[in-house]
């Protein structure tokens, strides 16, 4: 967590709204917050949609941990080359300025902190930035971690993109994670449909945005978490 621009908000959208953000709005918000010229890894599922809103002028370079910088959009039709896939094993394209490297070099690039941002999904995030996103810990489940633990610590900043609540209504931000950890103190921001939260080792959660939930309602859901209102509302 080396987030030096925790208060930056690159969009002009209001910080407090009555409705939760749609997935598209959330992706747009994250894309707007990514600095021009950044090197970025977008994780499994929802985070991938951030790329739809990265404007070309920002010159953001995408990394895929199976050995490439300068990854382009998904390949279709004649573009498909079975030797050119992303970490989700989906055929992708090559952008100008791309480069290929082997797995050890690729993960060295992440582990060494050379990427600016990783955007990841999560089951749970703790107030101090612990991440749980690789296992629900169900007994008897076959474990599989892939690159999750490497990605968690694989950039200067790790952003989580998630719904704030599970389908059952449990909040996914917590004083401590109850699911098996992916990484300790690694998440610097949570982008959720109900708000944006800035995390650090203090455990005090800075609430940058709130959507469809009030500060008081949020505090009620998180009785053990110290929240700080930074919405300016």
């Amino acid at each position, binding site marked *: 967590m080396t987030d030096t621009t925790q208060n930056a908000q690159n969009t002009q959208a209001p910080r407090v709204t009555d409705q939760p953000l749609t997935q598209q709005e959330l992706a747009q918000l994250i894309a707007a917050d990514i600095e021009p010229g950044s090197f970025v890894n977008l994780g499994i599922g929802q985070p*991938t949609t951030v790329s739809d809103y*990265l404007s070309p*002028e920002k010159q953001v370079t995408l990394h895929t941990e199976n050995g490439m910088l300068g990854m382009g959009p998904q390949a279709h039709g004649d*573009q498909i080359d079975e030797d050119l896939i992303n970490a989700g094993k*989906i055929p992708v394209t090559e952008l100008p300025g791309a480069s290929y490297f*082997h797995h050890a070099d690729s993960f060295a690039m992440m582990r060494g902190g050379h990427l600016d941002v990783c955007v990841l999904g999560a089951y749970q995030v703790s107030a101090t930035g612990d991440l749980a996103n690789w296992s629900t810990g169900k007994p008897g489940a076959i*474990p599989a971690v892939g*690159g999750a*633990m490497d990605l968690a610590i694989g950039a200067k900043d790790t952003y989580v993109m998630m719904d704030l609540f599970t389908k059952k209504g449990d909040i996914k931000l917590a004083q401590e994670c109850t699911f098996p950890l992916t990484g300790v103190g690694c998440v610097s921001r949570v982008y959720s449909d109900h708000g944006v939260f800035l995390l650090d080792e203090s455990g005090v959660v800075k609430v940058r945005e709130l959507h469809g939930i009030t500060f008081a309602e949020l505090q009620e859901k998180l009785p053990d978490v110290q929240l700080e209102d930074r919405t300016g509302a």
Partner: protein
Amino acid sequence: MREFVDTAAEAVSRITDGATVLIGGFGNAGQPMELIDALLESGASNLTVVNNNAGQAEAGLALLIKERRVAKIICSFPRQPDSWHFDEAYRAGEIELKLVPQGNLAERMRAAGAGIGAFFSPTGYGTQLAEGKETREIDGKNYVLEHPIRGDFALIKAYAADSYGNLRYRKTARNFGPVMAAAAEHTIVQVDELIEGCLDPEHVITPGIYTDTIVRIPSSSGAFQRAEDEALAAGRPKPCAAPADEAPAGGDIAPESESAAAGAAEQK
């Protein structure tokens, strides 16, 4: 001495029961499918296999596992929608699983090839996968001690080998190949092309010192490469190039063009 052989069967014939075999590939890219099939055919059993996954559907590694020839697998992502043979063997207690984060898997093999005795990795610190492992705080950051993973054999796929055993790869099919080639005692390579003469010394990815047995087995990679060569010769963009209006500008010199959109990035 390096050997060039004619068939996949010959290529894997040295592999005996109980061997540790590093198998390259990430998805289908760089997967030495014909070598794995030959290993299945060879009958070698009680194997320890290192691969990113644990086999998929009814092919290759999945069949080795189905036939209970793999006593132990070291991988990062065994569970997949079509990993039913692994799932069954695992639930039956008939295969041992060592789950390793993907970057640690790569770095531990790199350490084996590089003569490093052990190294402190930040990946996995504070998680279940580091339980029982030595940890240390260095400069205020926490690390886990990780040890090398060596292979008796590596089975990898490269795009081309020259007559000196130097290799080049294609795109993301490079993945684990160079790392495994250096981490194994004996490296067996299937290639699409044998180059008469030699690769440009500046462009060799795996030097011949790391390759032992080479067999040519044409695959679809060759067709993709030929299509690319033809396009470039005709002055057209590579088939795999993103459409021009999606290409982002690079540095400060050519600040034109467009954006990036990734396909779904599953952490497999």
